[in-house]
Each structure stands twice: as C-alpha cells, then as structure tokens.
C-alpha cells in the first residue's frame, strides 16, 4: 500500500474520467453500463482511500463502499434487463437509435 493519499485519488480520478468518456462516447448500451460501473468503482476507491487515511472515517467509509456496491449491483441488474428488453424490441444495442420518445 502506497503511503500517499494523492496517488489513490489520482487513480480514482483517472478511472472516473475513463468511465465518463466511455459513457459519453460509446454507442453500445452494454459498454455504457460498463462505463457506469467504472465510475461507481472509481468513487468507491476514493471513499475507501479517505477511510484508510483518516481512522475516524474508517467505519463510515466501509459502510458507504458496501452501499455503493449494492447499488451498483442492483443498477447493473436492472440496467441489463432493460437493455435486453429494448434489444429484443429494436434489434440493436446502439442507444442513438432509441429516439422514438423524441416526437
């Protein structure tokens, strides 16, 4: 374990940036869900790092991290189910084709 909090935060920021970019740039719905997972985990990493370097926050950090993981799992489940349902309907995983709500 590195002794520097900044290293963890930089890594977390990088992961978050990659996730954001992936979410905005990829057209595939599955890839976008994966990007969201990446962002959530980046945040999780930052939270755990804060917990590890500040003993007073350790308990809270672990709790938040567990909560985020649960939410991430739930989000992945529901998200994938929706994507599959749409895919069956539209025969495409590409989100820019899902524009029938526009008019």
């Amino acid at each position, binding site marked *: 374990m590195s002794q520097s909090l900044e290293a963890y935060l930089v890594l977390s920021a990088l992961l978050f940036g990659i996730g*954001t970019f992936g*979410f*905005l740039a990829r*057209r595939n719905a599955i890839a*976008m869900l994966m990007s969201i997972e990446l962002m959530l985990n980046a945040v999780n990493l930052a939270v755990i790092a804060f917990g590890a370097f500040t003993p007073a926050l350790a308990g809270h950090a672990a709790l938040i991290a567990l909560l985020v993981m649960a939410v991430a799992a739930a989000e992945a489940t529901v998200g994938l189910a929706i994507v599959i349902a749409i895919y069956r309907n539209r025969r495409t995983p590409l*989100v*820019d084709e*899902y*524009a*029938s*709500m*526009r008019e």
Partner: protein
Amino acid sequence: MQLTVDQLLVVAMLALPLLGFVVTGLIGRRLYARAWIIAVPIIIVTWLIGMFIVYQALFAGAYGAEGLRFTLYEWIPAGDFSISFNFLVDNLTAVLLIVVTTVGMLVHVYSIGYMAHEPGRWRFFAYLNLFMFSMLLLVLAGNFLLLFAAWELVGLSSFLLIGYWYNRRTAALAAKKAFLVNRVGDFGFALGIFAVWTTVGTLNFVEMPGFGPGAFELLPGQLQAGAIDPWMMNGIALLLFMGAMGKSAQFPLHVWLPDAMEGPTPVSALIHAATMVNAGVYFVARSSNLFAHAPEAMVIVAAIGIFTAILAASIAFTQRDIKRVLAYSTLSQLGYMFAALGVGAFTAAIFHLLTHGFFKGLLFLGSGSVIHAVQGEQDMNRMGGLARRIPITHATMLIGSIAIAGIPPLAGFWSKDEILAEAFLLHFEWVWAIGVVVAVMTGFYMFRLMGKTFYGPSRVDPAVEPHVHESPWSMAGPLVILAVPSVLLGLAIGFPPLDGALHHWLEPVFHDALETLDIHHHEFQLFGLDGLLMLVGATAGALGVAGAVWLFGLLRVRSPQEQRVERLTERARPLYRASYNRWWFDELNDLIFVRIGSLFARALWWIDVRIVDGTVNGIAAVTQRTGTGIRQIQTGRVQNYALGIAAGLLVIAISYLFLAR
C-alpha cells in the same frame, strides 16, 4: 316543531297546488281529456282553506292585529345571514287571499270549458297550479327573500302560460318579452333587497317569534338615529319600486302586459288582470312602513302611477283587439292603484286592487267567452250585434263595464272614488285632476268595447255567424259568480266611505305608515267636500259612458253612429294614430335597445374579438413559438443528456475550486 291547526292550513294551502302541479305535470299526459281532474279539485280545496283563513283573520279576529306569524324552518343559514321559510298572515294578506283564491278557483273551473278542445291541456293545468302555488307564497311570505323567490316563480309561470302556444311565434316572442322586461324591474328589486340587508341587517318584514325585530320595526329607529341617510332611504324605496313597476307593468316597463294577451284568455284573466300584476301594488302596500319614510320616492310612485293611468287609457281608446283594450285598461287601473299608494292612500289602493281583481277578472273571462263564441276572433271590427246571441256573457260583461266605469253603486265606483278623493284631500291636486280625466276615458273606452262587441249590426264572419253560441256552464257559471262581487263588493266592504269593513280590517296594517306620513282618519261628510268629490267622480265616469253610448250605441236604445265615429277620427288623425300605435313605445324600445343597443353591442363585440381574444390568442401564439424553439434541445439521445450532466458537474467542480476559496 309543533304547528297549530291554522299554521298547518297555511302550509297546506301552499302544498296542495304544488302537489297538483307535480302530479299533473308527471301523469297529466295520461289523463287525456280529464287533465283537470286533479288540478281543479285541488284548487277548490285550496279556496276553501283560503276562505277559512280569511274568516279567521278578518271576521273571527283569531290572529289579532299582529297577524299569524310563524317559521316553518330555517332556509338559508350562513353565519350572520339567516333566512327562514316564514309566513306572515295579517289582515292585508287575508284581503289578498280573498281575491287570489276566489278568482283563481273560478278561473280553474272556467278553464275546464275554455280549454276543452285544446290538445296538451294537462300542461296548462299544471302551470296554472304552479302559478297558484307561487302567488299564494308571494302573499304569505314573511320576508323579502322569500317574497322575491315567489316573485320570480310567478314570473316563471307567467312566462310558461303566455308561451303556452309555443309553436305560435308571436306567443313565444311575447313570453320572452314579458320575461325580459320583468328582469329589468327585478334587477332593481334585487338591489333594493341587498340594500335593505346591508342597512337594516334583517330581511324579515316584522318581528318573527324567536328571530328579533323585523326590517319595518328597525327602520324608523335607525333613520332617527341617523344610521341611514334619508336619501339612501329614498334610493331603497325606488329600487324596490322598480321591481313593482316591472311586475305591475308601470311606465316605462308597461310594454310587456299587452303582448302577454297572446296567452290563453283564462291566463289573461287570472295572471294578467286579477292577481300577478297586483303583486307590485301588494308589495308597496306591504312595505308601506318603508315607503312612508321615503316621501320623495312616494311622489315618484304617484307620478308614475297616474301617468301610466292616462297613457294606457289613451291607448285603450283605439285598439281593435278586445283583449288588448282590456289589457290597457288593466294598466290604467294599476296606475290608479300606484297613484293611491303614492299619495298615501294605502287602503284605497288595496280596495281598488280587490274590486278591480273581481270585475277585471269578470271582463277578461267574458271576453274569453266572446272569443269562444266567435271561434277565436279577437278583432272587435269583426264582432258586433252579439248581445242577443250570447245573453249571459253580455249581461255579465255589461255589469263589469259599469263597475269599472265607476257608476254608483257598483264596486268600481267606491274604490276609484276613494282614490280620487284621497288624492285631492292629501293635496295631490294634480293626481286628482288627471285621475278624473282618466275616469272619463275609462267610461268611454269600456263602452266603446261594449258597443263594438255587442250592439249594432253584426260584422261577424258569415262562415262563423251560424255557429255563434253561448258558452257552456263551466264558463258562464264563473261569469255569473264574478258578477256578484262586481256589483256588491264596494257596498259590502267599502260602505260607508272611509269607514267600511275594509277600512277597519286594514287600519292596523297601515296605522304606523299613516302615522309617519301624518295622515289622520277623517269622517266622511256627504254634504261637504267629500260629497262634492264623489259627485265629480261619478259624473266623470258617467260622462265617458254617455260619450261612448252616443257614438257606439247601447242595447236597442241607441244604434252605433259609424259616420260620426269616422268623422271624429278623421278630425283627430294624429292623435288617433298615436293612440292606435301605442305612442310608438315598442318602436322606441326597438330604436333604443335593439338598434342603438346592437351598435353598442357590436362595438363591444369588436373589443372582445380584437382586444380580449387578441391578447389571449397572442399569449398562446408566443408560448407555442417559444416551445417550438426550445424543443430542439430535446434530442431524445441519452448521451446528449449525459453530456449536459457531465458539463454541469464540471462547471460546479470548477466554480468550487476557483470561486469558493
């Protein structure tokens, strides 16, 4: 709540006609020719109850000077504002009940014969019962609002009955006209009631058991304490009088009554001669304690009354339709009553209301019998010589005509003479002078009607001539019965003058008002001013009758002088035309309200379409255009939205970094 027998009977008197209306209205169609089988017996029972109440009030004195006052239930409870369904049966109400129930009952019986050939007559009888209910409620009501409700109900029944032949365009238009003109009056009436509420704080006429003092008891005190401005008082009186003007067809709201003759004749007799049109007179008399405190308003009442009297009499001179002559005559007599109210002769007004109710009811029913005899013809130029063909109708109508002309000792003489004499003695000499002229005119136009209808050679359509016949007994009977009070009523209750039974009955009712006006009872002096005035009144009537007999004939005594009539008409051509065209009041109204009114309405319409609608439509258009523009943002692509979120997040983060430090 426990009601006494008398109170129960008062309620029954209202409930029975209402029941008759509902039942006849619901199942009348199945009764076919016997549509009257429920409606008429119910009114006969109502009449019997009415007579009992009248006996209790006037002869037995069971209700005392105060009258029978009771509350059925609280009608509108709303905080401080509380209106009850309460009744006031004093001597004034009882006197009105005499004419309302009696004429009402006779007209119902008469209608059995008159409407016998009419399909859909169940509707007629249902409406007639509704009218009886409304009219009885009107005279029994113990507060302004209940009276107003009844006031509107009689207006509704009047509307329904004028428009009874709704597929006849003129009848439908006449019904509409009556309703609209009455709205003008009711507008003032409603404002007057509001004003009474805001100034006095109660709408009860007098103190009701358990409800504190009424308006007429509170008003004098408040006026004295300066809580009410005297001009406010005059304003209230005039606003209330406006309602009376509409219902009793006084100038300038008189235009609806002659047109109302489009309804069946029994309706004209009951509603537009004997009862409903008297509502205005009754109301002003009921509010005598209010009007007495508004002396300026009373002068206006007298002026409008006497002006209507002479105006209508002048129009009655030349009308050809037998019912229209009678309609204008009604206007003229109502004018007399208002003149009497205006000068402070309340008893004389009610006296005339009573006698007029009977003899004018008789004349209208008689005219109905004439019209029935000549198969629906109403133009007097196509009548003539009917005296021997329909003797009962002729005899009873002759009695009615003598009564209205004011020839002693028939009923009309006593009441009309009392009005004129009182006007003179109370120093309204101008009212008296015009009244005497109207008396001459009344005698003239009534005997013109008699002459043209009954005497001289027949001008009846040759096709109809052989079928002229006397009416059945259901019609002739009421005529004979009505002829009795037309002869005797004046002697029975108005003799000796100023000291008859009626004067004693009404003395407690008008006592306070007369006290306020500082009018005191005086003894009638036959060999003094009173006797002289009476002589003048009788002479005036006789003069008019003589003039008409001279021109239009009487029985076999004198034959009509048609050339002479022609010559006289020719000499006064402009006057004749003015009279025949009713002084162009309908045309004037047409000009003011229809032509000029429609110009004004069109201007308003332009404002509505261009400015009001323009504003609304403009706002809508701007909203729509803005929406179309902003809608471009909504691409429907998830990633565009996500970019927005990310950009927003970035802005927040950056501003936190650079600004919050």
